[in-house]
């Protein structure tokens, strides 16, 4: 009995064959995509693929990677047509990056790219989306002295950017979630390539505002920092105080941060409470007073607090001019659904009038090995 069924199964196997089998040597492994706009308004997709043999053998003369460019009317066509220039099938699951050029984000919009990423089974949802003001293909093709594959290096830069928190990391999923929750503006990471005398350089700092689907504006490093503070994404980084008073100067390194913005509705008036608890250590200071003097500490905390507050204020000021990229509307919507229902239409006008209150709690957990400035 069981034997016959097993025979049937074998029969099915033999008769049907294997439809989904694609061998490794029939694949081109895509590790990065760059999207640009050509002069006549078409889309240029640059696909970075690996050349495995040169990567593992090391001493090969051939390039470790190749950039396949294809131009088409729409994004999906461009990505698909890249296959025309490749001997093998392009394989996207290992792609970690999509770099948009500013021009692309302005003219074509980023949303249909994200739709493709979220819909099809090959690209990963947690790939990073970045924006550059120059040519995306250019950024993608940067040569790094540290490693052969630019995409890997850029990925690594993005992954380690939490150290300074002056840039933001946005994945396709974050963006898609924002779109789903009707958060109007998403902040993308900004990557720039600069050519200097000693070679090419990549900087990953600041951010770019994307309103729904289209490019809006850039964020400076300070504004990005403030954005990270207010959205609780600030991980570690420096607070450098540059007060007019030359007596006290600090470099304070944040080790742990827990910050949260909560809307408060009182008598129909909206305020935002910013609650921040940070702990960190002093890694450099210049002060006339010794740390052993207990009276000096409140002053230090004051200075650090001012530093953090100024970052946040920079971001809030920016938001007042560009639009709510801090996700404040979403906070209100979740906390006061009724208020939101009444005021959704006029939200753009209402929220700039809302005031911010700051409650910053700083814990200095380390002063280092010496206790006063030399």
């Amino acid at each position, binding site marked *: 009995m069981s*034997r016959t069924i097993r025979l049937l199964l074998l029969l099915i196997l033999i008769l049907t*064959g294997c439809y989904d*089998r694609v061998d*490794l*040597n029939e694949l081109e492994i895509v590790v990065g995509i760059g999207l640009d706009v050509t002069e006549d308004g078409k889309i240029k997709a640059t696909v970075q693929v690996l050349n495995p043999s040169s990567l593992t053998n090391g001493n090969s003369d051939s390039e470790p990677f190749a950039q396949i460019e294809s131009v088409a009317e729409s994004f999906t066509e461009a990505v698909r047509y890249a296959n025309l220039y490749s001997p093998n099938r392009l394989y996207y699951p290992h792609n970690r990056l999509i770099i948009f050029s500013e021009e692309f984000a302005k003219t074509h919009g980023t949303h249909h790219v994200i739709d493709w990423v979220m819909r099809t089974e090959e690209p990963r949802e947690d790939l990073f989306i970045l924006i550059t003001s120059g040519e995306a293909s250019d950024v993608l093709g940067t040569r790094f002295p540290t490693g052969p594959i630019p995409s890997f290096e850029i990925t690594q830069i993005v992954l380690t950017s939490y150290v300074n928190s002056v840039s933001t990391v946005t994945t396709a999923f974050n963006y898609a979630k924002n779109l789903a929750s009707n958060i109007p503006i998403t902040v993308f990471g900004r990557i720039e390539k600069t050519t200097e005398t000693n070679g090419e350089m990549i900087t990953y700092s600041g951010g770019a505002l994307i309103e729904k689907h289209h490019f809006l504006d850039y964020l400076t490093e300070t504004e990005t920092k403030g954005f990270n503070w207010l959205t609780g994404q600030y991980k570690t980084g420096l607070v450098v105080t540059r007060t007019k008073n030359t007596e006290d100067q600090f470099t304070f390194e944040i080790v742990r941060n827990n910050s949260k913005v909560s809307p408060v509705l009182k008598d129909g008036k909206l305020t935002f409470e910013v609650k921040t608890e940070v702990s960190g250590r002093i890694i450099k200071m210049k002060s006339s007073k010794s740390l052993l003097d207990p009276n000096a500490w409140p002053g230090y905390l004051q200075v650090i607090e001012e530093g953090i507050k100024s970052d946040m204020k920079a971001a809030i000021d920016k938001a007042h001019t560009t639009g709510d990229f801090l996700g404040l509307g979403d906070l209100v919507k979740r906390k006061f659904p009724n208020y939101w229902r009444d005021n959704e239409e006029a939200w753009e006008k209402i929220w700039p009038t809302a005031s911010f209150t700051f409650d910053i709690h700083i814990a200095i957990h380390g002063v280092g090995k010496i206790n006063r400035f030399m």
Partner: protein
Amino acid sequence: MRPRTKGVSINQRHLTSDLKSNLEIIKTILNESGDIIIREFLIANQTKAAILCVDGLVNKEVVQYSVLTPLLVYSNDGYWVPRYRIKEYLEKNLLTAEDIKENRVISSIIDKVLAGDTALLIDKEDTALIISSRGFSTRAISEPSSEAVVRGPRESFTEALRINTSLIRRKIINPNLVFESVTLGKVTKTAVNIVYIKGLAKENLVQEVRRRIKEIDVDGIFDTGYIEQLIEEHPYSPFATTGYTEKPDVLAAKILEGRVGVLVDGSPNALSIPLLFVEKFQTSEDYYSRPLFSSFIRIIRFISFLISIASPAIYVILVSFQSELLPTQLLVTFANAVEGTPFPAVVEVSIMMLFIEILREAGVRMPRPIGPAVGIVGSLVMGESAVSSGLIGQPLVIVIALTAITSYIIPTLYDESALLRMLLFLFSAFFGIIGLVSSTILVLIHLATLQPFGIPFMSPIMPLEGEDLKDTFVRAPLWFQKRRPKALGGSVRMGDKPSPPEESEEI
């Protein structure tokens, strides 16, 4: 041509009281075979008699000193004995052999003689005396060759049934240990013993085994393997449901858990019935060593089993279907390795799987000194050159080597894992990960249907028996396993562990 007398079949024919005609009949039946010894002489100075035995099967010393000497020397110079009391006199006063029986049926006398006993035929008597004198040369008890151990008893079964039973008897000194004798094989008449401990083995298990063994109807049995194939109920299953061992301590332990053993004369392997799936992962040494390390080794064995059956399948899935599951760096290495190889991964793996089986067969059948050489030439030279000539990729060599090594870790599962590997590989080659899962389900369902002798084969995993898991993936300390396996009855096996002396005071 067999002589036939009217009416009576040769098997039921009895001896007559005429020695000469008796001997004639026996000679005819035995076809005057060259190894038959018939020695005629006079006893008690008056009566003719003859002994009948087979050269090489009898213990010559027994025949010499316990049979011939008393008969030829003492009977001829002792008292005068009335003729009608001669037989009784010989049996009671003269013959010093340890066991003497009377027998009248010719065929049965011949069977006994052919088994190594000596028959004494006396003129004017229609009964023969069967004197136990079995003594043929056997192999000495040696160390086990296929189940080598570091710790634990080192004796193994030999080809002689009685030696084997004595080995068991010496381990379990208990009147309830029963050896049931059955003679099997219409031509060979092989002695088979069913071993169990009465009251401990499940009654219906013993009955079932007994029934199936008694119903065996073949011409000859040379090894326990014959019995295994004839009594198992899932002959088409890749899984063996009876186990075999060559170590008496292993068999004794299995009998003590409530299993039934089968010993066959002429076979140094004993069967143990039933075999559970988890037993294949257990070795005797697990129980002799301390539990922590044994458990670690057990887990290693289970992992190896999984690797051994699934690694070609998983390799094919990773390389041909779900390349996204590989980390990027590894994917690059793999892609580089397979670049330029002429065949798709499926074909490569099939070739290598076939190759490794051929290699193993070559290594096993070769005489000892050549075996390793075959292995080296096969694995090193062929593997290396297959890679360098661009026939296959390097990762595949690793996978295949891993498969081969892990499949040798559990020798008792070698057959099964080879077949399972093929099955999983075939399904995976066509359907990728779905094929792997569906073939796994098929195997699991198949395993769950196996019920050798009414005992679930997968116990204690399917059905899940929490109590018995103590001796499955890990080997819990002995005093944790107070009961025997539930599938085999689950009676209490031991009490508490002797406690160490109480500590005087906590310091």
